[in-house]
């Protein structure tokens, strides 16, 4: 069982690396992340034995990732909609501590 999962992970690694060299613009990041999520789910489900664990353990596992999504989603709401300009500061900050 471990061998099968290991081979699947290697297949996904090969896939994501080759896909990186295909010019797809903004879709590249989405694909790379989708494959990364797939690999992570494989590791979580089989290696970390979520497959056989109780619902409570699965809830604990999912909670961390869900709360991370909250942070990413709401900061995205700010950064993607910010209109005004951002440029390097005219005078670089002095190096004094």
């Amino acid at each position, binding site marked *: 069982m*471990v*061998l099968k*999962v*290991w081979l699947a*992970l*290697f297949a996904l*690694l090969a896939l*994501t*690396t080759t*896909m*990186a*060299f*295909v*010019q*797809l*613009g*903004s879709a*590249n*990041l989405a694909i*790379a*992340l989708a*494959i*990364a999520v797939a*690999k*992570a789910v494989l*590791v*979580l489900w*089989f*290696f*970390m*034995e979520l497959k056989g*664990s*109780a619902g*409570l*353990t699965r809830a*604990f*596992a999912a*909670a*961390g*990732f869900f*709360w*991370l999504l909250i*942070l*990413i989603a709401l*900061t*995205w709401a700010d*950064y*993607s909609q910010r209109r005004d300009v*951002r440029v*390097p500061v005219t005078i670089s900050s002095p190096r004094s501590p």
Partner: protein
Amino acid sequence: MSDRAASTEPGFQFADAAQAREVSTLGMWAFLATEVLFFGALIAAYFNYRIWYGDELIAAAGHTKIVLGTINTAVLLTSSACMAMAVWSQESKARRAACLWLAATAALGLLFVAIKSYEYLLEYREHLVPALDFDGARYGGATELFFTWYFCATGLHALHLLIGIGFVLFAAIAIARDRLPDGLSIRILGLYWHFVDIVWIFLFPLIYLAGRNG
């Protein structure tokens, strides 16, 4: 050192061994949730800067070594598989096999750290290390920002990996001397190791793959 009646050696508060196992697993998973958010804050920072400096960040990521990165990912995935084998063999009382698999896991972990430090050395020669002698004129602000983030993220990941290797070696020695009572702590150690592997699974595309489709 417990200060209560004889019946209060460590673990007295559990009704039975099964409850002790569930409690330790749940405790580990709760700790891993904090680690997810600990690394997650950095990944959220990356996404926000990716929204702002899309193409500059891609250009900056072009300087990362994808070959070494891919090899490292393969190494870490294999070490995760070895750890899974170790937990499986310890559960089925194959003591010698568990010890060997744990040694393999630690070896692969050390290999990862070796490749990573070699990669750092290459980047140092290219003046890509922000705090030391970053070549600002040649690379510009966004690249320095990316590499600051890169060194913080991979440095922290390597630190977690070293701690993991330490525990794995300690467990391997304990099994060899047959001092480890049950498979519980190997399973807990396995959870931690696989988590460190998952962090790298997410860091790999953000650092290395981003640079290829600029």
